[in-house]
């Protein structure tokens, strides 16, 4: 198994700052903005984004966790049913500008399911997608991210591994992994 480092701690911080500056540019006062982290791994990044906006813009943006497991289109098409995680949306989505946050954008199917899951909580005014890593040329659906930390050209057989301190790792690191062919 080969591992290649694509983002280390310092670079990740710079990337996050850039993404949050872009958010500040587009959302201004964040009055009607909310962040939704996608379970299971997007929530850690969503928390980092929330903290960063707090530091940079002195704004408190509401944060929720969204689990799209029950909306996935691969139910009964895999060996075991996907395990659901907690959904915690303590605010109204109706009329809000939603920033969906996930760590890696791959086939786009999770985002499609998340859009469905989100609609169950109301009709947002606008939805944007922020991802740390965009795996280009691997999309199954016409879905694109509005804010991208890093574009990475990958093969289907490769895997992107995100290790964050919040998930219990020693430092923030993002790897590209070659599975055995």
């Amino acid at each position, binding site marked *: 198994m080969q591992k290649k480092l694509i983002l280390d701690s310092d670079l990740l911080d710079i990337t996050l700052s850039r993404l949050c500056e872009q958010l500040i540019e587009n959302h201004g006062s964040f009055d009607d903005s909310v962040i939704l982290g996608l379970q299971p791994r997007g929530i850690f990044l969503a928390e980092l984004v929330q903290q960063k906006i707090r530091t940079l813009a002195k704004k408190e943006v509401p944060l929720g966790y969204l689990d799209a497991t029950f909306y996935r289109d691969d139910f009964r098409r895999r*060996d075991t049913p996907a395990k659901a995680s907690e959904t915690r949306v303590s605010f109204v989505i109706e009329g809000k500008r939603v920033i969906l946050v996930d760590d890696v954008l791959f086939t786009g199917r999770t985002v499609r399911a998340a859009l469905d899951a989100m609609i*169950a909580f109301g009709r947002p005014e606008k939805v944007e997608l922020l991802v740390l890593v965009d795996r280009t040329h691997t999309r199954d659906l016409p879905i694109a991210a509005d804010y991208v930390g890093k574009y990475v050209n990958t093969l289907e057989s490769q895997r992107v591994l995100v290790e964050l301190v919040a998930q219990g790792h020693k430092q923030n690191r993002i790897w590209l992994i070659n599975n055995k062919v």
Partner: protein
Amino acid sequence: MSSLSQRHLLGIKNITAKDIELIFETADTFKEVINRPIKKVPSLRDITIANIFFENSTRTRLSFELAEKRLSADVVNFSASTSSVKKGETLLDTVHNILAMKVDMVVMRHASVGAPHFLSKYIKANIVNAGDGTHEHPTQALLDTFSIREKLGDVQGKKVAIIGDILHSRVALSNIFALQKLGAKVMVCGPPTLLPKFIGSLGVQIELDVKKALEWCDVANVLRIQLERQQIKYFPSLREYSLYYGISKKMLDNLKKQIVIMHPGPINRGVELSSDAADSAHSIILDQVENGVAVRMAVLYLLAGATA
């Protein structure tokens, strides 16, 4: 990994503690779903479920139907009283006919012990036992233990007394299996005539005095006197039963600790449980009903997902 060890839910006896934990964790997420403004998720939208009830039921059937609909499954209902069973059709023929119409899952209640186990040998669809005679009622035991876990934080180490008509109760047997698998201590309490002879062999404590049982337990699961299953007299009168085994609010208030009162329903108010006890702060009877939908959604979701 995240799938059950069985294709069917025939009884708690057949499943593992791990299965129960997985059902609970899945039910936690469904409980959040059914408290949303939009209570429906599309998971089972390509699945058809037949609810086949050879015996009357209000709560269980409604609960299953709601669970199925909240998962977006297509639902057909069948009750024996209005069907060709009356004309002499066998159980296997009835179910084969229903399955020929492309049904993926069967939820069945039957008056005969082992009816779903028998069916599981002959048909391909997943079967959920919604009660077979006086044998098992697995989803009831799951929702009961789920409710204990929700109220007390854990089932492990808790003392649970099952009080009342143990002999005719499928809820009792399934509960004993579920509670023991999750590490709880179980006591059964009732008049000697309503305690089955084999009950001691299950490793449960036996108590004839309801006051002592209440003092011992953290949770009292009170069962209904099932007059419809009693062909002979097991006690002199309902009034006498109520006098010796009925639970009132006063009895609960006189205990040194706060215990939890559960009842699988339907309650015979004034017989096994007085009205003030059933409606008191001790009671989690309506939480049980709410949890029933979430737990059944979890069971259906996990069974349906494993058939790919």
